[in-house]
Every structure is written in structure tokens, then in C-alpha cells.
């Protein structure tokens, strides 16, 4: 069973649709008991960082989920805001504390080219920097769908799996032990996105 964590932000429908399309049983839940029983977890989300943390806190999920992920090493994939929440801190409209599972900060996208618009919306590259189970069978020129104004900056270069160049490089995919994150939306990136999601669900 795959549990998609519902904390009131983001389009859970498309994530569960993709997981089920790949032949996995999935459940949307905000209950820690369901997450403990799950084989794998997905932390999706679009929206503001501070709202995300506030909602996780109101659901009393921060401590038990951290224990489940960091100590018990339950495999988890964070998507978009979900991957950003895993960082130590965010500078999105102020300074906010994150879940702190990944040594990194969330910063505003500031392309060094005035012609590049923000938010960064659309299909863009994923420069694969490291071998990973996530990338098995994914061609190096595969494109993924991004839609974001902020990005995670990993302090530990070993965690960086893939980058994207949008007037400067940013981390597009990372992995630390059982924790995976993608800034792009695999559930909205057609064939390659579905394959990457499948890799996590099967091998993560």
C-alpha cells in the first residue's frame, strides 16, 4: 500500500491517479497509523511553504512522521512543495523552519537572465548527476514538467541526483538514504515521469 500524505495542500488526485495507473494500491490519508502501515509514502503538495508546515503541525504529523522517515527509514518521495518541506529551512516570504530531513534551504528562483520568467513553468531538462534507482530506464534527455518559484539548495553535494539549469543550476532531484525528492512533477510528466515514479514505488 502506498500512502499519499494529505495535509490539505496540492492536487492529490493526479498523484493517486498516476500511482494507480502504475498498478499500485494507494490511499490518501492524514493519519499516522496509515503511514506506519504503508510500504512507501508520497509527500506531494503545491502552495506556500509556511502553510504546508502549519498544516502538518495542526495534524500533529511533524514528530511522528519524522520518526517514521528518519529513524525507521520508511521510503518517501517528496514532490514539488513536498520535497521543499523536507529541507531544514525556507526563505519563502520570511524565514520558516522545515522538516529538516535534508541538509538544505529553500530559496527563490533568481535566473541570471532577464528573459527567463518566474514561475518556471513547463517542460525542462533533468541533468542526471548520479546513478540512482529513480533514473533506471530514463533517457538522459528526458523532459519533466516543472512549475515553481522556489527551489531547494542541498548543502551536501552527495545528495544531489539531478539538476536543472534555469539561468543557474538548481537541484531538481535528490536522495538521502530512504528519502527522495523531485522539484518537477513526475505524475504530470507523461511516460518518463510515470517511469520515474514506478522506479521509486518498486525500488525506492
Amino acid at each position, binding site marked *: 500500500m502506498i500512502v499519499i500524505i494529505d495535509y490539505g495542500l496540492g492536487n492529490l488526485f493526479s498523484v493517486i491517479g498516476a500511482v494507480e495507473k502504475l498498478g499500485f494500491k494507494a490511499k490518501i490519508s492524514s493519519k499516522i497509523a496509515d503511514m506506519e502501515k504503508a510500504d512507501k509514502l508520497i509527500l506531494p503538495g503545491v502552495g506556500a511553504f509556511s502553510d504546508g508546515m502549519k498544516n502538518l503541525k495542526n495534524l500533529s504529523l511533524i514528530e511522528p512522521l519524522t520518526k517514521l522517515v528518519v529513524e525507521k527509514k520508511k521510503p518517501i518521495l517528496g514532490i514539488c512543495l513536498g520535497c521543499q518541506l523536507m529541507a531544514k529551512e525556507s526563505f519563502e516570504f520570511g524565514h520558516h523552519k522545515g522538516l529538516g530531513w535534508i541538509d538544505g534551504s529553500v530559496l527563490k528562483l533568481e535566473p541570471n537572465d532577464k528573459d527567463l520568467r518566474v514561475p518556471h513553468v513547463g517542460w525542462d531538462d533533468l541533468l542526471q548527476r548520479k546513478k540512482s534507482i529513480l533514473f533506471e530506464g530514463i533517457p538522459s534527455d528526458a523532459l519533466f514538467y516543472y512549475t515553481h*518559484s522556489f527551489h531547494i539548495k542541498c548543502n551536501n553535494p552527495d545528495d544531489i541526483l539531478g539538476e536543472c539549469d534555469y539561468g543557474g543550476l538548481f537541484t531538481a532531484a535528490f536522495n538521502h538514504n530512504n528519502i527522495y525528492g523531485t522539484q518537477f512533477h513526475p505524475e504530470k510528466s507523461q511516460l518518463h515521469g510515470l517511469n520515474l515514479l514506478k522506479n521509486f514505488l518498486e525500488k525506492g
Partner: protein
Amino acid sequence: MLRKRLITVLTFTDGVLFRTKLFHPDYRYTQSFIDSWSIDEVVALDVTRPGQGSKENFYSTVQQLARKCFVPLAAGGGVRTIDDFKKLLSIGADKVVINTEAVRNSKLITEAANLFGAQCVVVSIDAKKIGEGKYEVYTEFGTKPTGLEPSAWAKKAEEYGAGEIMITSIERDGFLEGYDNELNKLVSEAVSIPVLVCGGAGKWQDFVDGIKIGKASAVCTTNIYHFTDVSIKSAKAYMKNAGIDVRI
């Protein structure tokens, strides 16, 4: 390198897909072709006139679409409240398109952007040409003049929190004679968020012109021969040939 997008816009009356001309339902389609794999994004708009159908039929169509759509899906038409945003997002839309209400109550843009993120809020602007190089924003299916100038309104919408602008030329809609790239360029150059251009594409060169002359981030099409799998591929091959970075 961020690719330029080719977007299919689907317009529905009472849940049934129609092509529009001058903003009126013009030609009815069946829906079997929508699950194409080459399109970059889909926009579903409810253009049902008051009293001519139920919102529920549109919602059920969007939900069906979302189930087989593994590219981003934007939905809109008649969005008035945060609850309307929530409804569309809950049935599978990734973004919400607002138009008339954005003009009437611009706070909705800010409120929605704060709640769902700027990337979720697409402000759609319908414009009519009113003189040489002059345009005016119309709302309510392109029937009500607002006194607003499109590029100034786009700039305002960006300040209020919009993540993308969709600009449509009312008088080009359904004519297949090309975009109004004077209008597109005006709006694109006024903002620093992505701009989707719509209304008038009829041949592959129109997409190239929309990007090169109109400065669009994405070009939209509403006509059936554009969104079969083969024709999308052919359009993209043409664009690539013209030096535009697209997802093949």
C-alpha cells in the same frame, strides 16, 4: 532549456466539447482524441451560458479528463470563489483559470495565490482591438467592455499574484487566420510571468509566429486537427525546424 509549450484548449458547453468562433459554440466534437501523448498541457474551459446547462456536467467531464491526463490540466470558466478553486482542484485540475471575476474582484487572485501558490492561478484576459495598436479588455464571454487596457491589466494581475497570463484575441477566435501578435507582444513584454497566447491559430507557422513575434511562453490551439497525436507531432517538428525549442 525550458521548452516552449503547445497547449490544447478545450471549450465545453454543458459538459460537451465544442469548438468556438467569436466566443460562441460553433462545432461539436467527440472526445476520444484527448488522451494524446504529445500535447504539453491541457486547458478545459466551461463556456456554458447561464441557464444552458449545469456546472455538474462540466465537473464530471473535467474529472474524466483528469483521470487519463498525465500532463498538467488547467480548468476554468465561471470561477467566482475560493470554493470554486477548491472544487476544480479536488477533481483533478492542477491550475485554475479565472477571467471575469478577476476583473470584478481582484482580491480573489491574491487570496488564491496565497492559498494554492501563484503557479495555480492563471489569469485569462480577453481583448478586442479598438483602434490602431489599441485594445480593450472584455469580460463575460467577451461581451462586456471594462475600460481596461490588456497589458496594464496583465501587469496588475501579476502584482496581485497571478502565476501565468492567458491572452485571447476575441475577434480572432475560431478564424484560423493567425494570432494577434501585436496584442500578444504588448502583453508578453509587460509582465515577467509566463504568457499563453490564444485565438486564431490555423497553421503551424502561426505557432512559430506566436512565439517569435508574439513573445509567447506557450501557444494555444482549439481546433481538432491540432490535437490528434499525429498533428501535434507534426506541429512540433515544424516548430523545431523553425528554431524553437519544443518537447518532441
